[in-house]
């Protein structure tokens, strides 16, 4: 979408280690909060679906006691619905049990009702009914590489899903395993990691096994994607066939976040962290970095951010909205959430002292 109309407002969803907070704003300056919803359950994934003339908030909930589930709300959190048989449930023949939903990804406007999910154990799921029931993607589940995929610190999960507008071209990323691509809408999958380093393996350039933290698609160039790796920031211009480093100009090549502009080509954001040994912003100074030329150059953006911040920003604890100019939002493991209404030029604190922020999503919605 383009510029705001008076009939639209913004919604911000913040998933934390101990519950979900929702906020609405008419202008991205003043926010009204509700929550915590699902207190004492972690919220690692949120999808806001604005298709079909409604706003559906889908939430991956996980209780340490009672397990994971997916719920949704069509009234901005006033009420929640949990499908009786469970939205995501492993078929009996797999012998597997759902551990955590890491990603909820509404598909393109041209495919209303289609929602993808990524989960732990490493799996991809697809819903055609707006996220109420998902089917396991068998092509990935039965992949011959499965026994060689590993687990990152947070678990073994498919955490990134990118579907191209035509719908036949799907990229996912998993930790650890790297990037896999399907050219047939998810029926078959092949690794596509050439150029992405796996320095922690005996062969640092394997076909798969990389610990890619997040991928995102360029808004304007078909076949161009960006990746924040476990050390390394990359871009592909050929649909994943080759990845090239675009880390020059960043203060660190480690991090978890990768965001791309909703409309404009060549624009992406990262939040660099020092490294394996110090997973904090470099020198304890939190900053977002944005490129407007597909990674050729980066610009540090820290206006409105604190002078010192020693908490990291997790892979899904950052989001953009679809407005023009785009809003940029992120939260820290220290429970502070920052928002920018001008593509990161200036940030303002919108929430603080929450539990660890695991997931942030934002959207432009019809005003109630």
């Amino acid at each position, binding site marked *: 979408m383009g510029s705001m109309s008076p009939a639209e407002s913004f919604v911000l969803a913040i998933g934390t280690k101990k519950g979900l907070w929702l906020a609405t704003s008419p202008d991205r300056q003043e926010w009204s909060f509700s929550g915590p919803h699902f207190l004492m359950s972690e919220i690692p994934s949120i999808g806001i679906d604005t298709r079909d003339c409604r706003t559906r908030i889908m939430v991956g909930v996980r209780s340490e006691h009672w397990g994971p589930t997916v719920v949704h709300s069509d009234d901005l959190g006033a009420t929640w619905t949990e499908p009786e048989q469970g939205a995501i449930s*492993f078929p009996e023949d797999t012998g597997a049990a759902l551990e955590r939903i890491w990603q909820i990804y509404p598909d393109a406007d041209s495919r209303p009702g289609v929602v993808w999910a990524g989960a732990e154990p490493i799996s991809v799921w697809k819903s055609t009914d707006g996220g109420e029931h998902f089917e396991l993607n068998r092509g990935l589940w039965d992949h011959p590489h499965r026994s060689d995929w590993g687990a990152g610190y947070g678990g073994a999960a498919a955490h990134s899903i990118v579907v191209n507008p035509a719908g036949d071209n799907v990229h996912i990323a998993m930790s650890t395993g790297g990037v896999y691509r399907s050219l047939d809408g998810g029926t078959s999958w092949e690794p596509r990691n050439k150029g992405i380093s796996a320095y922690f393996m005996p062969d640092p350039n394997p076909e798969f096994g990389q610990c890619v933290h997040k991928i995102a698609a360029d808004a304007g160039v078909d076949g161009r994607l960006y990746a924040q790796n476990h050390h390394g920031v990359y871009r592909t211009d050929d649909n994943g066939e080759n990845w090239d480093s675009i880390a020059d100009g960043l203060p660190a090549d480690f991090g978890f976040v990768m965001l791309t502009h909703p409309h404009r080509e060549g624009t992406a954001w990262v939040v660099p962290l020092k490294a394996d040994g110090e997973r904090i912003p470099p020198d304890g100074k939190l900053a977002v970095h944005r490129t407007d030329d597909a990674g050729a150059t980066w610009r540090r953006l820290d206006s409105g951010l604190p002078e010192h911040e020693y908490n990291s920003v997790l892979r899904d604890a950052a989001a953009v909205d679809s407005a023009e100019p785009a809003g940029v939002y992120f939260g820290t493991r220290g429970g502070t959430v920052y928002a920018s209404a001008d593509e990161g030029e200036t940030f303002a604190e919108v929430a603080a002292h929450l539990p660890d922020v695991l997931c942030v999503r934002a959207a432009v919605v019809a005003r109630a």
Partner: protein
Amino acid sequence: MSCASGRQWSPVPDISVVLPSVLQPLAGGQTVLTASTDGPVTVEELLNSLTVDFPILARRLRDETGALRRFVNIYVGGDEVRRLQGLETHVQPGQEVLVIQSVAGG
């Protein structure tokens, strides 16, 4: 074995399953679920029977493989079933079964 949401007359005493308050809304607000049986049943059979009408409650207690969730404890005769025969532990008519979440987390 049959299950009921309230106590009914039976020649042998029912098995009662006491739910923690956080799960009671998933059982229609009931504090206790009761099962009528003419002999001993396993915990697995008991849960299968009592949660057939409450599928969300069933998922809170066990995962898709049927395994008891890690921090869900079920007590039969005062002992946690993991120290007995797990879900194969037998429950006698008239016994009370307690579902208690473990003290875990931070």
